[in-house]
């Protein structure tokens, strides 16, 4: 009877350990190979569409703020990022112009004349496409993997970025190299996690979705 109890205990211990080993990230064996495969996948990707679930974790307050929405991306530089719950907020980036609709308030910004928004545009586009780690002047990347995912951690090098971002983590699915999760860490310890369930690539997305009124 006692032996039976031990075998059940070992079985659960094995389950826990195997789950842990799958989740644990270790240093990537072939970062150059990953970069090459990723560049190829990016070249073939014309559009991306997905819903997203954003979780802002407030470390000191031990609270989480959940928001949800949908995003569309179309090559070269078109992005529609729309929050639908618990409020409505829309950002459209279209070849150098940023359009924001916050409830009834609409604003249009020429990114080329605005350094801060140009930076935001650059980071958003880089995160959605996942190629931000290629800019080694602005970020110091380090590469990791587990059984199902690749992970690239990036530490900002520019002092203005360091003030509000301590690290960006981008998770990729090993099969299709799509971004599955994005984490942005702040110096305070707070972080924002964005999950992209059910991403679809190369679907037909009309240009009207990115029109700036």
């Amino acid at each position, binding site marked *: 009877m006692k032996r039976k109890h031990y075998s059940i205990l070992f079985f659960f211990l094995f389950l826990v350990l195997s789950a842990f080993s799958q989740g644990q990230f270790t240093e990537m064996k072939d970062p150059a190979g990953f970069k090459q495969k990723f560049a190829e996948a990016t070249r073939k990707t014309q559009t991306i569409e997905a819903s997203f679930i954003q979780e802002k974790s407030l470390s000191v*307050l031990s*609270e989480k703020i959940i928001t949800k929405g949908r995003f569309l991306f179309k090559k070269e530089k078109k992005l529609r990022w729309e929050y639908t719950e618990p409020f409505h907020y829309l950002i459209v980036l279209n070849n150098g112009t940023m359009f924001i609709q916050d409830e009834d308030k609409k604003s249009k910004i020429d990114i080329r004349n605005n350094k801060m928004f140009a930076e935001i545009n650059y980071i958003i586009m880089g995160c959605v496409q996942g190629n931000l780690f290629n800019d080694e002047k602005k970020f110091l990347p380090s590469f990791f993997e587990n059984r199902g995912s690749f992970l690239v951690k990036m530490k900002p090098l520019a002092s203005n970025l360091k003030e*509000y971002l301590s690290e960006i983590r981008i998770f990729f699915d090993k099969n299709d190299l799509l971004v599955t999760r994005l984490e942005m860490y702040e110096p305070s310890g707070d972080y*924002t996690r964005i999950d992209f369930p059910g991403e679809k690539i190369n679907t037909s997305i009309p240009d009207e979705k990115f029109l700036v009124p």
Partner: protein
Amino acid sequence: MRSSLFHKLLLILFLWIGLSPWIMGQPKGNVSGQGPYTTAIFDSLFEKALYKGSLDISKHHLSGLFYLKRFSGSSVRILFSNELGMNFFDLELKGDKFIVHSCFPSLDRASLLKLLENDFRLLLVPDTTVIRMKRGRSKDPEFLVFGVKTARGSFHYTYDKVSGKIRRIQTSRSVMGRTDLRVYGDMRLQPVKIHITNPAIRLHIRMTFLSN
């Protein structure tokens, strides 16, 4: 003689009635016992709330989420982040102290932070330092107006007669210019909408309640 004694007693009685608010430590003109010194705009039982909001200063527009949380009777945390989750500021009112846990570099100005401290104190922390209070005239019969002098400054409080809730607080004298704080909507613990304006530095804060 009797008449003179009667007049003296009457005089003492009138003086006593006139001076009693000061002798008893009660603010002058507070007829109903309800007044600005008893509550803040947010109820004392309020614990936490999430607001969608925006902060306009000069020609800059920031939008995002305000998260307010009370930790204990004397500590309230105010966090404002953009929609993508990056913090603009994380402030704490702890008793008389004002702690800036983090602040976006372009907002990190002593004058702006002082205004934010004062505004959020008016919203969240009852003022227990009333020195003088006088009932004023209200143009609208549905509201009561009080002129209040406290250790924090001089204010005009506007009350809803029916609900007894504060609807508006205006600073009457301030080096930083007048702040006008208005709240809308009846919820038990917190207002639905909050508008704060300070024309002197062109500051506008708008908040709309989302959830607790």
